[in-house]
């Protein structure tokens, strides 16, 4: 076997090397010497220039967080997801449906038409909340697992809750000409439908398939990009409003 490359040494340093690399390293003085150099570099990097923050920083952060935080209403996760999600699912879809109809100007009782800017702000807030919730499901799916069958009952319930609203937001995005957002929501919808209609417990192999699909299609990444764009647009519209009010 050739000597270890720098990348191999990095893997070894962080404990991710395979048995072959470890076996070679154990018997090779040259590679151990090279590792000494790498260790020295990585130890030096511990001496970075992060500014220190004292006790007062924690207090200042708490003062900033305190007025904005939402009240914590804890219900154990399983208890919350199973019955509550089922009861709330139709309301979430109904809320999304009303919102989308409102934004598309189809709510006939609206006495004064809302401006395009206000419509965009409302849609951005709603879509942002939706994307945040879907992201949580995707992250849970990526981090779930363990020995034996995987219990996806809570993720399945979340998916069932999210499918109808996702569909409405996708349709709204198509109508609004937001092609990029519509495409991501379409990918997301396929996955949510699959999880929502799948079994509550899946074999490790079936679960790996789901995870591979999320990874190969980059769904989580796409959702994050769209969410990030939505946040950016929220900030831009807020700036516009502030500028208009100031002028």
């Amino acid at each position, binding site marked *: 076997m050739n000597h270890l490359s720098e990348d191999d040494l990095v893997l070894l340093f962080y404990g991710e090397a395979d048995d072959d690399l470890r076996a070679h390293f154990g018997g090779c003085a040259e590679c151990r010497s090279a590792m000494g150099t790498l260790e020295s570099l990585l130890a030096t990097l511990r001496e970075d220039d992060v500014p220190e923050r004292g006790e007062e920083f924690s207090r200042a952060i708490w003062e900033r967080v305190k007025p904005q935080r939402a009240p914590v209403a804890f219900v154990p996760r399983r208890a919350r997801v199973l019955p509550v999600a089922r009861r709330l699912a139709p309301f979430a879809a109904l809320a999304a449906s009303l919102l989308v109809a409102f934004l598309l100007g189809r709510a006939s009782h609206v006495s004064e038409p809302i401006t395009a800017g206000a419509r965009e702000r409302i849609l951005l807030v709603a879509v942002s909340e939706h994307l945040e919730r879907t992201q949580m499901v995707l992250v849970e799916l990526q981090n779930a697992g363990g020995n034996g069958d995987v219990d996806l009952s809570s993720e399945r319930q979340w998916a069932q809750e999210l499918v109808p609203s996702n569909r409405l937001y996708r349709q709204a995005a198509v109508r609004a000409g937001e092609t990029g957002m519509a495409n991501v929501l379409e990918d997301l919808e396929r996955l949510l439908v699959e999880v929502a209609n799948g079994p509550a417990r899946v074999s490790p192999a079936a679960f790996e398939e789901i995870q591979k699909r999320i990874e190969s299609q980059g769904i989580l990444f796409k959702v*994050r990009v769209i969410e990030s764009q939505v*946040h950016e647009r929220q900030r831009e519209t807020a700036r516009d409003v502030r500028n208009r009010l100031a002028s």
Partner: protein
Amino acid sequence: MKQMEVGDAALVARARAGDESALQGLVERHSRAVFRLAYRMTRNEQDAEDVVQETFLKAFKRLDQFEDKANFGSWIYRIAANCSYDTLRGRARRESKLVRDQDDQGSEDQMQQVPTSEPSPERLVMSGEVRTRVGAAMARLSDRERSAFVLRHFEQMSTREIATILGLDEGAAKHSVFRAVKKLRAALEPYLPQAAKAEAL
């Protein structure tokens, strides 16, 4: 990652029961570590402070989803890493737009608003040379390389965790760490301790 401390578990339980002082306790325990992570990723103090605030707001909003058996520190650092990476992406877009605007308008003033990644003169005076060099070398990495490296080196996250946070496949996450190490070595080799340099020769 450190094992979950009893203190965190008790604070989370009390926070879930509506005890506001427990939330404050969690901020006091973790805000400085979250700041260090956020600063290492964003290389900007103001951005890092905003990330700390956003991290705790998100964490408290989702506290009912936190699994009791999990490590609160690891959980909140993952949220912080996500917030930091979102900040970097937002900043990259803003800077790109700013450069486009400047090209359009020929304005020089606007470029002064772009956060600099170089150490300030004050920091150069106050910090030791190695620390300054390390900071400058870290700042010169791409956002993805720096984020991957910080999560690997300082937060001891696995390649899989890094890939999840950065929205990459595991191979890309691993190669981001490799590239970061190569660039850092090239930038810092002249400043390594003499013994290590001699071995390198």
